[in-house]
């Protein structure tokens, strides 16, 4: 081989070396790798996946930056680590994509998961934070057991097509403490959040659609559910056997399929439900076996039945607004307290002008009681015979202590206030311009 050939061969070799895409290497030096477009080899059975090797090589407490590509395999984390992906970093698995166990301080950011089973399984972990994580086309999303200080921010879970009874939960948490979930977007799953035996829960600014129960809690205490949007689920909030619950500023709408409820509380204690809007639900609130529960300052719009109450004498419903609902209350003989609410179907007068009706508002009626016993009777609502029965009710409920009435119905809505902000500078400049134009026009004439 001549010298010339040697030089050409060497140059070609160098060029090939440079142009060959770089295979992901461990990068625990806190910097991004250059993107690669080569599909990695599928690991053989028993062989560690490429990403698992990268995780193993990262020192405890270190940060691993992933490339913009698809990693395959079932991964395991058992040490403190931060894993940050790029916009299109994906992890696909034929079983569970990621298992995190017996460790602390784990952060996952900017990664999408797809798995045949539950995408992420966490157990016995202190401090785990998931941020900007996507889960799609998986049997279930995230399952967390016996962990503490869990934060989920901007996690998107999209379940498979089909009926919810064949799917898993988006986020299921068992026997854990301190859960914070904000700005998560969940769709088409069994339950958006399923929490069992969990303490100290804060679920805020989440959006959950087309699922069985948007937020389902059992055997849990110290719960805050605020500013969530729950649309078109079988039930919005399902809170069962819980204590110290605050539900505020949420929108619960269009839960109107078979057996649908906006909010269902069962065997609960010390509950404050305020400033929520419930619209277009088959039943807005179903309350059973509740103790010390206050429902106030909510707006109930266009629901079938607003309140279905059983065995909940310690329920106080006050300062709410009821608009366009078919039936206000269905209850058992125990009843509950109804006070100072606005009802659009109240026909009383306010002659003394104190904004409180001069006659009581009768919230229950005989037909409502029958519907409690036989829900199928709801198909006769608003029929002529039922209307006549309702009218007769108003004549015979004067001394009937078993009827739920509001003695102080609000007759007028809140005073209408028009707020006008005047921007002085804009007004001044536009006035000068207008006057100038008029002067110029006059001069031109």
């Amino acid at each position, binding site marked *: 081989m001549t010298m010339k050939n040697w030089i050409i061969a060497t140059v070609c070799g160098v060029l090939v070396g440079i142009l060959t895409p770089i295979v992901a290497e461990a990068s625990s030096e806190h910097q991004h790798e250059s993107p690669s477009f080569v599909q990695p080899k599928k690991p053989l059975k028993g062989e560690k996946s490429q990403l698992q090797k990268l995780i193993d090589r990262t020192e405890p407490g270190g940060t691993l930056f992933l490339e913009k590509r698809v990693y395959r395999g079932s991964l395991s984390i058992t040490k403190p680590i931060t894993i940050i992906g790029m916009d299109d970093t994906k992890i696909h698995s034929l079983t569970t994509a990621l298992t995190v166990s017996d460790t602390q301080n784990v952060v996952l950011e900017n990664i999408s998961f797809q798995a045949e089973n539950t995408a992420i399984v966490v157990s016995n972990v202190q401090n785990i934070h998931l941020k900007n994580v996507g889960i799609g086309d998986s049997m279930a999303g995230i399952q967390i057991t016996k962990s503490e200080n869990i934060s989920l921010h901007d996690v998107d879970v999209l379940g498979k097509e089909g009926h919810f009874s064949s799917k898993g939960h988006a986020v299921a948490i068992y026997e854990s403490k301190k859960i914070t979930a904000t700005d998560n977007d969940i769709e088409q799953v069994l339950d958006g959040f399923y929490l069992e035996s969990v303490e100290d829960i804060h679920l805020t600014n989440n959006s959950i659609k087309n699922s069985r129960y948007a937020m389902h809690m059992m055997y849990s205490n110290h719960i805050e559910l605020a500013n969530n949007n729950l649309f078109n689920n079988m039930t919005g909030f399902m809170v069962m056997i819980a204590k110290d619950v605050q539900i505020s500023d949420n929108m619960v709408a269009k839960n109107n399929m*078979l057996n649908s409820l906006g909010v269902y509380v*069962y065997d609960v204690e010390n509950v404050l439900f305020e400033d929520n809007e419930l619209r277009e639900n088959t039943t807005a609130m179903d309350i059973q076996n509740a103790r010390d529960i206050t429902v106030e300052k909510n707006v109930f719009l266009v629901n079938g039945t607003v309140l279905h109450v059983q065995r909940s004498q310690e329920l106080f419903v006050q300062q709410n607004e009821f608009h366009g609902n078919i039936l206000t209350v269905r209850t058992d003989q125990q009843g509950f307290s109804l006070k100072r609410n606005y009802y659009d179907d109240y026909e009383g007068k306010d002659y003394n002008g104190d904004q409180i009706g001069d006659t009581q508002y009768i919230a229950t009626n005989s037909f409502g009681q029958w519907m409690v016993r036989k829900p199928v009777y709801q198909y006769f609502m608003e029929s002529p015979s039922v209307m006549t029965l309702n009218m007769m009710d108003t004549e015979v409920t004067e001394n009937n202590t078993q009827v739920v009435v509001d003695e102080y119905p609000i007759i007028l809505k809140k005073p209408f206030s028009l707020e006008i902000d005047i921007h002085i500078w804009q007004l001044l400049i536009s006035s000068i311009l207008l006057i100038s134009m008029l002067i110029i026009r006059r001069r031109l004439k």
Partner: protein
Amino acid sequence: MKLFKWIGFTISVFILAACSEQTYEPREINAEADVCYMCNMSITHVDYAAQIVLKNGDHVAFDDLGCLMEYVLEQGKEKIGAGFIRDTNSSKWLNIEEAIYVYSKEYWTPMNYGVLAFNSQEEANDYIKAQPGEIVPYEELLTFNWGVHEHE
């Protein structure tokens, strides 16, 4: 004469049918539509489902044995024809009065009451060998403190 024989035979068949004890059969649970009568949860975990057949033929479905027992305690036994619970091993329906029950707070059930049903004492014993629990007679279930594991 032949006609009389036939009439006699038909009448005796009707009399026998009228005298026979009424039987109650469980129905299939529909995971997409059925909800528990007591707690209102949809019955998606059909292997833990229970049901009561009333004497009038109506079926009442439950997602957990605990909910069924609450119903029995609340409504009384007068109107109940039969009760059924799923066998943990085979998922077949068992009569609630004939099943063998095992309890542990570690057993998961939809309402977390932790009571499972088995077809025989042997199967129940085998189960608690693998996953520790205790055998609970049916009569005790009627006084069992169903709830947040208050029965511990």
